[in-house]
């Protein structure tokens, strides 16, 4: 590996800027190699396999009624859960950032629990609570509500895993809001409600959108926390990842592949959306999410 900076050739296309620091080839090479072997190659296998189904085969597998049902269940529940998380997540971020109360730091730390807790553990714990004989399940049973083993249970599980995404995306933005802007709003005659609703909340829009998208994407892909509480009844409470799993156990690789491709395409669309939101907000407002 050459230690000397590249000769300066103005106008020539250069892959990288010259630098005295060594190790570029080694580290980039290793990075690309590792990435290709672990991520790219397997994903390629997926793409090839789904291409191998042929457009007709792919379409048939993807639009199979049960697949549709599973995707619908995943999407609708993830959407509802992300929505709930946005509302409560904003409130939680507000309370954690703006107020001081005993135990605040503890609660701030607990927000990250869903990140750290294994999904299977979350799954059985949530089921224990929301089953008809569980702490909350028993409370709402007299009202005729059932949570566990229904789509409602799926929503609850997705709320659990999505909450940190929303809170941790909104918190830094809220912390940055300058005190002066609120004072300015007050001097202009706005009461507290108007200041919050017209000045503070709208400035959170990019962060809220990003948090929503992240929570939604995570909910759609989630497996372990959901399959215990879900009931897993096709068309009603069977999520898409579970259907992939079932197809695999049936050795129906084609079917599994098709569903996986659809889900991947949607994930990438979400990623793209998030990046666009952040770019737009940086341009328009001067800050990212």
């Amino acid at each position, binding site marked *: 590996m050459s230690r000397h900076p590249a000769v300066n050739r103005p106008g020539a296309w250069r892959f*990288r800027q010259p630098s005295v620091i060594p190790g570029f080839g080694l580290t980039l090479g290793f990075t690309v190699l590792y990435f290709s072997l672990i991520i790219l190659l*397997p*994903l390629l296998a997926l793409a090839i396999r789904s291409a191998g189904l042929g457009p007709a085969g792919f379409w048939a597998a993807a639009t199979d009624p049960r697949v549709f049902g599973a995707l619908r269940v995943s999407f609708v529940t993830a959407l509802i859960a992300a929505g709930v998380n946005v509302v409560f997540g904003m409130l939680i971020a507000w309370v954690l950032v703006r107020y001081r109360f005993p135990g605040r730091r503890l609660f701030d730390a607990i927000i*990250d629990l869903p990140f750290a*807790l294994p999904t299977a553990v979350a799954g059985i714990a949530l089921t224990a609570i929301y089953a008809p004989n569980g*702490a909350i399940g028993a409370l709402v049973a007299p009202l005729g509500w059932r949570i566990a083993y229904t789509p409602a249970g799926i929503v609850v599980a997705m*709320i659990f895993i999505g909450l940190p995404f929303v809170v941790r995306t909104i918190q830094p933005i809220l912390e940055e809001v300058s005190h002066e802007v609120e004072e300015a709003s007050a001097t202009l005659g706005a009461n507290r409600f108007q200041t919050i609703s017209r000045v503070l909340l709208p400035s959170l829009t990019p962060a809220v959108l990003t948090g929503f998208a992240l929570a939604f994407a995570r909910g759609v892909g989630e497996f*372990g926390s959901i399959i215990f509480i879900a009931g897993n009844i096709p068309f009603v409470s069977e999520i898409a*990842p579970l259907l992939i799993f079932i197809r695999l156990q049936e050795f129906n690789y084609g079917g599994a592949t098709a569903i996986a491709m659809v889900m991947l395409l949607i994930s990438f669309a979400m990623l793209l959306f998030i990046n666009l939101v952040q770019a737009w907000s940086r341009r328009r407002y001067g800050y990212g999410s």
Partner: protein
Amino acid sequence: MAARSSPTSESPMVQWLFIAIALGFMAIILVLPLYSVFHEALARGWPAFLAALADKDAQAAIRLTMLVAAIAVPFNLVFGLAASWAIAKFEFKGKAFLITLIDLPFSVSPVIAGLVYVLLFGAGSFLGPALKSMGIEILFALPGIVLATIFVTFPFVARELIPLMQDQGTGDEEAALSLGADGWQTFWRVTLPNIRWGLLYGVLLCNARAMGEFGAVAVVSGKIRGQTTTMPLQVEMLYNEYNATAAFALASLLALLALVTLVLKTALEWRFSADLAASTRH
């Protein structure tokens, strides 16, 4: 106590209302599940709890989980170091694209992560039978589990190190080089100490996820009891066999791991926030 009323804060009553709702929500959604793990684990008392942990399948699962993490985490650690060195210390075309690519596994459902390895090494593939004939089993064995775990925990260390090292720039390294150090010396004596807390943080998260991974491993492991079940898989199996107490007993170990991770993570954030990644994205 909550701030007194001023032009820029709500009335105390509203503040307390907000606090009550927020904390109530968190208590039900977050704290209650955590508590119930331990509650259910000890529902039949300590003897049943300890017996469940001493069970030989449980012990095998614990050993397997630790082994998988012990392999997967160092791999991703090395990757994280290499990737962040390449990205933070150099300017090259396609850098932003590479950074986005590294985040890829985050947006892939764990079941799909398992699926892709089944497609690669499974019965209908090219590599699978070829390796089998050489005596190498990937799926339904340790290598498959390790690979799937590496996939899902792939970005953790890199995501932590990249913004950190970008923030720190190249000044220190250039100074070391100008004083005569070579690449490796610079890395060990200058770079590594600068990033050690971020590195620890990333490893912590990577490890927690590696030990707790369920979906991807469920697909590739074949769930051969006593051989290819990790702790999360064993929890599922026990639960499905209506052996709730044993399932929760094992789960409580994992929950304990989660708590320790949270404590260490928070401690690192408080003490060394300046030495951690600029962004707090997960």
